[in-house]
């Protein structure tokens, strides 16, 4: 009997990740406190600020607060999540437009959901695979997020506003609609 070929991935010693909880949805954003988690990538700030402005002025959100991610490349520390989750009703985060930051945005979204806060994650369409993979790793296979065309970093102020307006319907749907089967 020849020797077995050994597995280099360590799959046998890893327990599968328990399913991450998804926050309950509210019927609309009327009166909601919106938290923006800005990842510092070029144009992420004006993009999210415009999303926040639209949610406040046109969709009834009560307030918009913003916070800057400490490091765009990795998920936000637990204490930041806890503070934000206590202060807002919904989260919008992004814009994930690179390998590490799109994955981190998806991971942040899953963590906020588990903390009871509906989250809308925005990544550029080049990074669907990495956002989807990261959500699965975090126990949320099939996690839904919003996309906008890549690239975002080169857009003018006017183009950023247009992009924000184009994605606002998806953001609202992510924050208010139950997932199929819920």
């Amino acid at each position: 009997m020849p020797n077995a070929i050994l597995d280099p991935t360590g799959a046998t010693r890893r327990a599968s990740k328990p399913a991450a909880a998804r926050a309950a949805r509210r019927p609309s954003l009327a009166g909601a406190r919106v938290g923006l988690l800005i990842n510092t990538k070029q144009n992420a700030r004006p993009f999210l600020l415009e999303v926040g402005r639209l949610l406040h002025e046109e969709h009834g959100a009560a307030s918009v607060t913003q916070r800057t991610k400490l490091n765009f490349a990795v998920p936000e520390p637990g204490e930041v999540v806890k503070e934000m989750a206590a202060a807002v009703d919904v989260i919008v985060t992004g814009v994930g437009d690179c390998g590490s930051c799109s994955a981190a945005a998806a991971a942040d979204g899953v963590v906020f959901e588990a903390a009871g806060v509906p989250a809308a994650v925005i990544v550029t369409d080049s990074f669907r695979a990495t956002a989807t993979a990261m959500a699965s790793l975090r126990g949320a296979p099939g996690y839904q997020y919003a996309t906008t065309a890549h690239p975002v970093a080169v857009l003018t102020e006017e183009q950023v506003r247009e992009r924000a307006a184009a994605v606002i319907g998806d953001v609202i749907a992510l924050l208010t609609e139950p997932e199929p089967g819920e």
Partner: protein
Amino acid sequence: MTEAAPAGQAAPVGQAGAVAGQAPELDPDGAQAAIEFCFEQGWSDGLPLVPASQPLVEAFLATTGRDPQQVIGALEQVGRDCTVYLAAVNAAMAGCRPEYFPVVLAAFDALMRERAARGGGFQSTSGPAPLIIVNGPVRRELGFNTGGGSFGPGFRPNMTIPRAIGLIVRNAFGIHPHVLEQATQGVPGRWLICVAENEEESPWGPLAADAGVGDGVSAVSCTLTRTMEFIDNRHTPNPEDVLRDIADSVGRLGPQIFPQTPVALVLCPEHAQMFADAGMSKADVQDWLIGHSGRTAGELRRAGKGGVLHFPGPDDGSVPAQEFHRVLSEHRQIPVIVAGARTAAISMVARIFGEWSGQAVPVDEWR
């Protein structure tokens, strides 16, 4: 009696093609099937792997006193880690010999001390490569190439040790291309860059000594690099000419996205000796390049990179166009290594992804 093949033609397939001295029990068909199995599992970086078996991995584990289940590195963002055992399996698959294993462990330790490696570097669009530098007697003991072709192929430890690190990232951390690994183009030779410093022909102390490890101690340093650019300057007797040439590459616009742009300067022995003969220490070379490497604000703006001047804020135009923007400010941002042969005056500037931690890991810590 068989006829000899005509000149210029391959020998016929069959016994005539067998290699003299080959042990009769070697089984190429079984080896090929095992290699294909490894490809099918998704374990490979695209090249054939050595199928790892328990006796082989035990030979690796016997070279270190560490507990096989000790966790030696983790990527928190993906919830994965690597144990001594998994590192051994991947090192075996990469084609390392068992006695390389303490160097693999030291190299992985050095890499994971880099903030950029822990913080998303393996997922980055820039697709950076570990640049592994080996110092001390272990270079000779294991047969590292310390001479010509220092970045190139031909030497088993130089090639298989960085490959082992790449396989650990792929298999233990689960970072696969097109999924969590999102390199736009990546770096040529990613997972294949391991330089043994040419200490014998360097006029200065080894890199590990700059990192605080004693001279003559076997040690490994590591940083992530985004690419390399050569400086071919072999016709001037004037060291300042060569420094100006190097500074031009160090300070060029392409790599500039942040206010500082660290590099590793891999000097050929001829350039290093020229500087030393002119009375320059390593620190003198570093100081000269810190003072002269960069571009003017106007040049940055013409390339659409005025944002570098006020990062992370936008360029407000307050820096005069003629003002020189230096890309380096301290020695740690420009480690100097001497590598290659004394055959031509060709040096290399390696772009550091993020910044080097300034650390070296003694190999004995992993024995």
